[in-house]
Structure formats: C-alpha cells, structure tokens
C-alpha cells in the first residue's frame, strides 16, 4: 500500500512536469492588452532619445525583460499586412526619413485609423533600426490601440 502511494506520487510529479514542459514549449506570446505600459511618450521624443543615446534609450524602453510602452503620435502612413506580414502604422517624428513603426496583427489594427489621425499605441519596443549613416525607425511590435 505504501509502495503503491509512492509510485502514484512519482507518476503524478512526472506527468505534471511533462504537462508543464509541453505547455511551456508551445506557449504563445503574452498579449500586450494584459500588460501595463511602463512608459508613455510622444513619437518625436522617443526617436530623439534613441538618436541621442541608443544604449540609454534601449535600457529605458526595451529593458532587460519584456515590457510594454505607450507611444502617442500622428499617423504618417498605414501599410496593410497579410497572413504572413504584420500591418505597419508609422507615426510621425518630424524626420521624413524616420518614424516610430508599430507592427499590428491585421486583426488588431483599428479599421477607422487613417493618416493624419492622432492615436495612442501600446506595444513592445525592440529598439532603433538605424545604424551610423543608415536611417531607421523605432520599432514597436505586437501593438494594440491604447487609451489616449
């Protein structure tokens, strides 16, 4: 009886561990809607911080653990996505060669948004793509509309 209980406990632990491992292996990305924005910033100011000091801006907005930020700005352009490419909302920065590029799953992109609208976006900041003389964008991924 005692031995049977021990086997049962071991079997439960092994099964529990396997279930946790499988769940962890196939875990999807955390939804941004359930995350609080740790910073709120206007698009031109966000770009300016990355241009001034990329390392400091990365430490603040990208961080060491995944975090959401809110960016407020005016839509410069919307590039439609499809099943394999996310939609892209570009926020004006005052520099025609740079934007805050916000990736949306096509289903998360508000249908009424258009160029010129003032919007707020919540997403995961991944950094500034430019390098040296190469122009670039500040990239936000898994974006959703945020309350203004």
């Amino acid at each position, binding site marked *: 009886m005692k031995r049977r209980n021990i086997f049962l406990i071991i079997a439960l632990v092994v099964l529990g561990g396997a279930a946790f491992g499988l769940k962890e292996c196939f875990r999807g990305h955390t939804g941004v809607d359930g995350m609080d924005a740790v910073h709120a910033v206007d698009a031109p100011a966000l770009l300016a911080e990355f241009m001034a000091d990329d390392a400091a801006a990365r430490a603040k907005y990208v961080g060491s653990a995944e975090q959401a930020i809110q960016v407020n700005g005016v839509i410069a352009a919307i590039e439609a996505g499809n099943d394999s490419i996310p939609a892209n909302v570009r926020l004006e920065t005052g520099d025609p060669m740079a934007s805050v*590029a916000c990736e949306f799953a096509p289903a998360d992109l508000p249908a009424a948004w258009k160029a010129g609208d003032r919007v707020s976006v919540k997403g995961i900041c991944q*950094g500034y793509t430019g*390098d040296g003389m190469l*122009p670039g964008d500040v990239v936000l991924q898994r974006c959703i509309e945020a309350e203004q």
Partner: protein
Amino acid sequence: MTLLSNALLGLALAPLTLLAQDRYMTRTGHVDFHSSTPIEDIHADNDKAVSVWDAGTGALEISMLIKAFTFKKALMQEHFNENYMESGKFPKSNFKGSIKGVTAAQLAVAGTYPVTVEGQITIHGVEKPVKAGGTITVDGKGGIRADSQFKVKPADHDIKIPGAVRDNIAESIQITVRFDYTKMP
C-alpha cells in the same frame, strides 16, 4: 552676385543630387532564418530591416534589430535572444558590402538580373566575410526587389549551442533576404 552664389551652390550640390538619383532604400526589408533538423524546424521572421543601396557604385548597407525577429513560440524567441544571440549585448546585426552584376542604367529596364552580393556580415558582434548569389528584379513600375539566400554557421559567429539542444539546431542556418527598394528622395 546672387546669381553667382546660386550657380556656385548648384555646382556644389550637383554631385549629391547625382548620388541621390541612384540610391534606393527600404525600412521594411524581410529577413528570415530557417534551421532544419530531423528533431525540429526553427523559423523566425524580421520585417523591419533597413537598407540603402547605391546602384551607381554598388555599395550596400543593411541593419536589423535582433529582437525584431519573431518566432511562433515565445520560449524559442526568449532562448534565441537571451541564450544564443545575447541581443541585450549585441542588439543589431549588419552587413556592409556591395552588389555586383547590375548597373544603374539597367534598372530602367524591366527584368530579373542575377547578381553577386559580397561584403562583411556582423552577427553576435563577430564580423565575417560573406558572398552570395541573388537577383535584382525590376518590375517596370519603379519597383525594385532584391532577393538572396545564403547560409551562416552559428559557430563562425561565436554563438554557443548547449549540448542538450545541439541536435535540435542545424550546423548551417539558411538566411533568406527579400528587400523591396524605393528610390531615395
């Protein structure tokens, strides 16, 4: 005097104007990598690579954020960034080199041109020479698309794969690049 100043200014800016005429860029370049082993396939996409190509000289520059590579599985993405690519320490990967095999004049004519891409690629802070074949496709409506595929060995870039998952990750990773260029203003 004003006319003379304007003429001198025009002459001074002329080389820049000519230079800009042959320069193309993208800020939504697609780069993906694929590792295939009998145990599992690993795939990630990045649609935010930036690139400037000077068709006059052939000079090509590419930069991308490592963190902008997206995986279907969150755990894979976390391991990729934290354990293998150390994206906090090496946030970007870049390429500096040239495209050979197509001239700026050919870009006015629709067609697909085979090219060779050659230069230095920096991954995980380690710079290595790379040479790959590819194509430049001109669609006749001003669209220019560059495609290339090549392989990269993680070991060449000091990317350490733990023994426990060594059989899950291919020795050579297939990189696919697709850039839709537009003319720079």
